[in-house]
């Protein structure tokens, strides 16, 4: 009885298939440049752009997709914090087809929101480039993106603006008061 149950189980199990790939085994062959990008003095409210180039050295056209990845602390450059929000990074083409033995450029835009708390920060995030594939093994290449934000110009400007505005308002009030006083004296 035990043998029969086991036999039935084995037969049922054998029906599951990991489909064999009929195509000849193909190697994955592409590269990405640059491997590392450093952006310095990017103030809150500013944006920076750079290009990432994909070289498809294979003999078939491939679709490549771009993603972002927050690496754990131990894999980041020393002194770097995680990038606060991946949505601050945009790709001109999140997916792009690159013909065989060709290259393609994708523009990456990094925009920092206008908040003082994002000043004077050192961040790291990885940009992933991977070809679409239905094979068991796939390859993904990461571009290290290191972003350093500059000093918080927002607060300095705001304070200067408020002080100037206050001086002008006081001057205006004094002028108005003196004009009224002169009129009353006449």
């Amino acid at each position, binding site marked *: 009885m035990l043998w029969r149950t086991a036999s039935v189980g084995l037969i049922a199990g054998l029906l599951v298939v990991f489909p*064999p790939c009929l195509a000849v085994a193909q190697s994955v062959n592409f590269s990405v440049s640059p491997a590392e990008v*450093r952006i310095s003095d990017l103030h809150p409210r500013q944006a*920076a752009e750079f290009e990432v180039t994909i070289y498809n050295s294979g003999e078939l056209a491939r679709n490549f997709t771009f993603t972002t990845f927050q690496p754990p602390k131990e894999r980041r450059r020393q002194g770097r914090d995680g990038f606060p929000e991946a949505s601050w990074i945009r790709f001109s083409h999140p997916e792009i087809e690159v013909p065989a033995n060709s290259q393609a450029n994708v523009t990456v835009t990094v925009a920092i929101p206008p908040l003082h708390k994002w000043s004077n920060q050192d961040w790291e995030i990885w940009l992933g480039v991977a070809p679409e594939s239905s094979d068991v*093994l796939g*390859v993904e290449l990461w571009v290290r993106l290191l972003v350093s934000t500059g000093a918080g110009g927002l607060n300095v400007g705001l304070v200067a603006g408020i002080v100037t505005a206050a001086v002008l308002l006081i001057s205006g009030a004094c*002028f108005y008061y003196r004009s009224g006083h002169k009129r009353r004296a006449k």
Partner: protein
Amino acid sequence: MRADIRGKMRVATVGVILAVMLGLVLCLPALAQDSGTITITMTGLNEISISLNRTDWPLGNVAWNTVYETSPPIEWCTLTVQGNCNVNTFIVGYDAIWIDNPDEYKWTLSNDGSNGEHTYGLWFRISHDTTRGPLGDGYVPITKTQSEFWPYSGGSGSSLSPGDSKKFGLRLLTPTFFYSGRDMRTQITISAVAA
């Protein structure tokens, strides 16, 4: 009467000027944020690349609770570093999906290489790496969390340089129970970042 009108006009004019100046002053901080020098450095014009000499593993029919290994077991695929920069490499696996209806049925990838009902295990082993892994036999579980391929914490190896290569193999442990008659597909991604 005329002096009174002149006085009111003067006040109005001064008020308008003050308002305009106030507006300009308040705009200054915003304008200041869009100026300044941003430095973008592409480190050494580096090009990163790794290649795998094979990517398919046609298993065919599989049975419950059974181990399958690539052939040859630990030198089945060769990872070669190309480009012109040293790299650290990582590996991550995913759940196996039913090809006909991925949202309906899957095998969950375990986080320690073990198996269970509808749960399967994946392992890799790098050639000449005989003591790594939880069992000390060189085999390391592949999980859904990116983990080190080469180099790895606690190992003596260093980053891979252009021209370096690593041979490795895979091991699959099927679930103790799964629904039969369904074509399943899994994927493993090997990734690289500049060291």
